[in-house]
């Protein structure tokens, strides 16, 4: 078995939730009360997600449910060994880690869209934006989509508000199970771990600045603090800032928090969060990384101009820029660090998220086939089903609802 195939097999054996939603009704697993993914038989499904072993497992699971699956990922988010193994398994793959030139990147995305998908799983709304801006021909067959990330749901919500979203799209990122298991625990853990892998620093006693205290920022702050760091959070929202304060973190504007930071994380999902004035405030040897993230969250262009040239590569995924006589260490070129410099979110987190994605697709092809164009939430019962399956996989049991409690709820 190749290294890519072995890692896919490793992940597949550790994704019980996705396996359970794919198993048809009658499965003994608690919570497996659906009819599997039968509505997906013979559907053409396009997946545009970071190409790691868990995405490969989703592709294989959908294929096994009878769908025709094609997979795409941007160059920086492509694991070539996994891409090769997936192609070897008969899945159409449009992803290469060396396809960094703009023309090559667009050609791969267009290759995915040329498969005339019925359904589309998107990440960062990259494929859906291309469909709406340039490839409107795809709308002739495309019946629905689902979006994986916070940074993708945001522009789709704007598009929907303007009445320009041409198909129904399920905001999987808004699902509660996704927020809890993936954005908070998964992304937080894997982004902190990826920075430690790349840099080798000991977090104990270090000062860490975290920009943004949404689910990802909260997870990053929690995991950094868990490993001994002193965390300072910067937030524009007073409620989130208050939450950070009461969670035990300091709260300060980013340019001030940066002055003493050994490590600065951007977790806002907003471009140019880490501006040049923030970078100038950092001490010598400070690390800068992005968790979650959108393109340009660190203003790398301004940094490069101010540093007067190319950075010095120090290690894999670590570049040193010289700014005002100090060295700043940018991790993974300012790309989302767990995807670019590690294997993405932990398998258990992706198990939940991709089970939600599979149910979203089955819903779009089944009960939700009549949904109007626009952005829709994932039905709450599907969200709860995934949470129940995850609990069952861990051997945890829910308190059964009592008759009184049911009545209280029904009468409310």
């Amino acid at each position, binding site marked *: 078995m190749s*290294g890519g195939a*072995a*890692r896919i097999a*490793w*992940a597949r054996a*550790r994704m019980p939730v996705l396996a359970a939603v794919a198993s048809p009704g009658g499965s003994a697993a608690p919570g497996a009360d659906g009819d599997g993914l039968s509505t997906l038989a013979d559907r053409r499904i396009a997946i545009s997600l970071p190409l790691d*072993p868990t995405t490969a497992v989703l592709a294989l699971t959908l294929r096994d449910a009878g769908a025709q699956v094609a997979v795409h990922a941007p160059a920086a988010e492509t694991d070539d060994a996994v891409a090769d193994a997936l192609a070897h398994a008969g899945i159409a793959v449009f992803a290469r880690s060396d396809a960094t030139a703009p023309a090559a990147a667009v050609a791969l995305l267009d290759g995915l869209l040329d498969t005339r998908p019925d359904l589309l799983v998107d990440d960062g709304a990259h494929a859906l934006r291309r469909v709406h801006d340039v490839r409107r021909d795809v709308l002739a067959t495309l019946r629905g989509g689902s979006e994986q990330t916070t940074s993708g749901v945001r522009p789709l919500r704007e598009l929907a508000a303007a009445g320009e979203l041409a198909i129904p799209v399920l905001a999987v990122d808004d699902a509660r199970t996704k927020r809890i298991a993936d954005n908070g*625990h*998964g992304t937080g*853990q*894997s982004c902190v*771990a990826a920075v*430690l*892998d790349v*840099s*080798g*620093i*000991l*977090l*104990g*006693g*270090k*000062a860490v600045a975290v920009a943004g205290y949404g689910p990802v920022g909260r997870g990053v702050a929690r*995991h950094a*603090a*868990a*490993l*001994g760091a002193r965390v300072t959070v910067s937030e524009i929202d007073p409620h989130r800032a208050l939450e950070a304060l009461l969670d035990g973190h300091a709260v300060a504007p980013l340019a001030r928090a940066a*002055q*003493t*930071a*050994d490590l600065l994380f951007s977790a806002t999902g907003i471009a140019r969060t880490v501006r040049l004035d923030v970078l100038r405030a*950092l*001490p*010598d*040897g*400070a*690390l800068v990384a992005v968790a979650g993230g959108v393109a340009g969250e660190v203003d790398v262009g301004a940094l490069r101009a101010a540093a007067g040239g190319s950075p010095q590569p*120090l*290690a894999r995924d*670590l570049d*040193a820029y010289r700014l005002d*006589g*100090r*060295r700043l*260490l940018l991790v993974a070129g300012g790309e989302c660090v767990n995807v670019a410099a*590690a*294997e*993405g979110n*932990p*398998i*258990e*987190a992706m198990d939940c998220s991709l089970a939600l994605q599979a149910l979203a697709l089955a819903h779009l092809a089944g009960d939700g086939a009549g949904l109007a164009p626009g952005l829709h939430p994932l039905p709450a019962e599907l969200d709860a089903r995934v949470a129940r399956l995850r609990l069952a996989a*861990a*051997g*945890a049991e829910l308190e059964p609802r009592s008759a009184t409690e049911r009545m209280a709820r029904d009468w409310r």
Partner: protein
Amino acid sequence: MDPIDPCPLLDGLLRETLADGALAGRRVALAGELDGPRATLAAVLADAGAELVEERPELAIGPFAREQYGLRGLVEPGTVMGAVAHALDAPVVAIGCSPVARLVFSAAAGPAVVQALLRLTNLSLAGRCVAVLGYGDVGASVARSVRALGGHVHVVEEEPLCALAAALDGHRVSEELGPDAEIVIACERAAAIAELPAGALVASALPGRLPPVLGVVARDGIVHAAGRDVLGGGSALLSPAGDGLAPEAADALLTLQGMALHRLASGELETGVHRLPHELEESVAQAWLERRTAGARTSERL
């Protein structure tokens, strides 16, 4: 590696200490791989005039087998008990019980073990049942890191003082390993593969805690054998000499070893087991405290 300033203590405090020439012309052996921070230690010793040798050293930083007779002094990274065997021939400085060494393992062992586990498996500790075998400095540090990352810790410890410490720290403690552990980390206590729960993911934090296993490679760095997934085929993630720790922590530990070597080279110690004097421990702690952060390093550089 900390790419900017990997070993500020070896390059600072130790280099300054060795400038008195005590090591000039002495034959010195270093156990272990000469990579990472230990390569810096070797360079600092060589710059101080020491001749680094593999055969018949006068002075050595262990662990070393008893056959290395003729030693005039040994630095033992492990415990005093480990050093006693050597004590008949020459002075031995034991680092294992040094306050700074204990601090190093307390602060850095848990993060290093958890980090290796996450990197090699891409799994999560959140919500998982994790058994920690043994509750010394390493076991306590591992238990703390696992719990902080959402794991449910179960400490296996027979020794009453250590078991009490684990219980007072809020961990579930028992003398035997139960069947519900999904991940088992052998720290101060060893385990036989057969007594580990079927299907468990098993890691060894310290050498000699798991027997070597043969099996098929499940993923890079993981061997599937006898129904268990074993990290690194049972080889340890850490060593008492500082392997596997973050470079910053290894820097402090190796500086301590180098300072001990300096004392032996100065010829003041009699045959027997010695600890480092408290002032020396404090000088290493003070240097570490001052060079700990990126900000602290800035002032000297500019």
